[in-house]
């Protein structure tokens, strides 16, 4: 079963544990600036929203890459960057409509979410359940449940 990250902004408190977990998993240090998931603080609205790659089926980054450095991971369905192939041309960062592929100047390569190979560190680290890793074909299940609950007769 293919799984996907489900992001629920209404549960996010903006603590950045996800960003630290992501950078620790991928870079070996606690470094939000290198995180592939970002939490945005909409100050005047008093809202927080985590955002990362949604692993598009027809991934624009993958199609744009001139050296085929972005490939589908058959186990997770994630679009993985092959660092050994990536030449750092950044075309994928332009192609992605959502801004979730970014260049890392330290490595000269691009970096994006790869679902940590099937056990995303951000989801494990999130203390409020704002980031969960669920059945990719039923990311709407909880919302459906909430609406279904409204339709049942009141006791």
């Amino acid at each position, binding site marked *: 079963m293919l799984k996907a990250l489900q992001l629920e902004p209404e549960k996010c*408190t903006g*603590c*950045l544990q996800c960003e*630290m977990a992501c*950078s620790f998993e991928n870079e070996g240090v*606690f470094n939000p*600036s290198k995180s592939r998931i970002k939490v945005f603080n909409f100050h*005047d609205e008093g*809202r927080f929203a985590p955002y990362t790659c949604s692993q598009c089926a027809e991934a624009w980054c993958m199609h744009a890459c001139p050296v085929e450095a972005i490939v589908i991971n058959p186990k997770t369905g994630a679009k993985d960057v092959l660092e050994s192939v990536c030449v750092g041309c950044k075309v994928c960062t332009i192609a992605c409509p959502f801004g979730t592929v970014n260049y890392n100047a330290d490595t000269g390569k691009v970096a994006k979410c790869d679902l940590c190979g099937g056990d995303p560190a951000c989801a494990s680290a999130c203390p409020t359940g704002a980031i969960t890793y669920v059945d990719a074909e039923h990311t709407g299940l909880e919302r459906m449940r909430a609406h279904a609950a409204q339709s049942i007769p009141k006791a």
Partner: protein
Amino acid sequence: MAWQRKLLRVDLTAGTCRAEPLNMEWALKYIGQRGLATKYLCEEIDPKVDALSPGNKMIMATGPLTGTMAATGGRYSVITKSPFTGAIACSNSGGFIGAEMKAAGWDMVIFEGKSPKPVYLLLENDNAQLLSAEGLWGKSVWETDDIIHTTHQDPLLRVACVGRSAEEGCLYAGVVNDKHRAAGRSGVGTVMASKNLKAVAIRGTLGVGGVRDFKAFMNAAAVGKKVLKDNAVTGIGLPTMGTQVLMNVINEVGAMPTRNMREVQFEGAAKISAEAMHEPRESDGKPNLVTNAACFGCTIACGRISTIDPQHYTISNKPEYRGASGGLEYEAAWALGCDTGVDDLDALTYANFLCNEDGFDPISFGSTVAAAMELFDIGAITTKDTGGIEMRFGSAEALTKAAELVATGVGFGKDLGLGSKRLTAKYGHPDLSMTVKGQEFPAYDPRGIQGMGLTYATSNRGACHLRSYTVSSEIMGVPVKTDPLSTEGKPELVKAFQDATAAVDSTGLCVFTTFAWTLADIAPQVDAACEGGWTPETMLEAGERIWNLERQFNLDAGLTAADDTLPKRLLKDAAKTGPAKGQVNRLHEMLPQYYEIRGWTADGRPTADTLKRLDV
């Protein structure tokens, strides 16, 4: 070790920035943040120095766990000599700038001297520059934050700065970071402004590595997070209600300082409580509270994000205040509300916004307004002194007008900006100042919670709840329940809380974790992160060392045992209502014993043996 092992020394007089290795020998004795920066301050300044002169220094310091994945590991402190109390000042703040400083490669920044012109520090990893702040001087915290982001076209910069109150000499101005988190107490912002330093803007992309044992650290951090989640206070109470969960509780036990501490219960408490913040209002059907919010790395998330009723008199003509911002925490709600007798939730939220917008401590501000209201009540000041404001207890209009005046330092705001000690002395009634060492009390009346009397009297930074929060034991039963009306065992309790808190404040963690954590939960995280073989025992000893070092600074600055006291009102005038009815604070039953168990002389000086034992 989860240190960057590097500090930045900024000589504002000369306009230079240079890197220095962190003194790791001291780090092994004083942990970091509060403890380590206090050590630097004690070594580098004369305790008798005029706090607002170039001879004073201001240190922004992180702890070893700041910027790591430990729950709440985002704290930083500002350490300096206070112009408000003449004692050591150490104000702790959350938000995000502490972790950003650490991620930029710095454990600490020491500011010394005074810039000839207004400047701000831009710190991007190794690149430190002092830039002209002439365009920022005269701007609020919120404007300064926005302008710096726009100027550098970098939304990820974190900014700490002072507002107009600090520039105008308000003695309880703080340093505000991330728009509404603050190193708020004791006038640390006043010191910053006195150095012509408007702001510090930081961007760090290096991250925090160097953890001694990553595997052990991640395990210890995960265990700690579970303890926080499973605890009723840190898992449910604080995220849902914030610190405001205390409003009704403290009122019921009769320890709610009301109308400048004339009374101990406030009839309007329910109207300004956490529960009230959740109630939809009539005008737009929205509650005051928008959401809870976390500081960096915090899995508790007690922060309040609020809006003001758009139809409220304070902002009906000011659309710029209609957005969400930092809402009422318990101490602010108490000082702005109960202590002034104002029960208008929106007026308090507005006053709180102004405290953030222009960087002044809501506790000292609210209590100073309360003192002014009592002066007005007894006829010691009139509308001639206040510039026409009817300073009556319970007047929301007086409160919000006062906040506007202190924010910009005009008119009666100049008097109010001096704090209640100087205000009441000026108008001939010094007994009406509810302060210790010149700093105003927080929201726990020591007639109803005896241990807090000793806490306030002996706090190294003047009256404060964050130096030993014995409310935890006396009211909430954490870690053990003690009788709030008894003085029995309180000297030991206060000492234990003071030492443990000094240790926690030196780690980079938030003291609110200690509703669930003890040093037995914290030491494994520090130990896995750092060399030094940290155990609960060695941390407690470091805490005691820090406490004695702070005490020694204060004694050298000229404070004496005579300053370890409470206002007459709390020692002589009995509580009028509630469970503590008939009680005064019995400080005299606790203080001599406290000195003794501290290993201090009868006049409150650490003995040579004590200093030697602790290797201070």
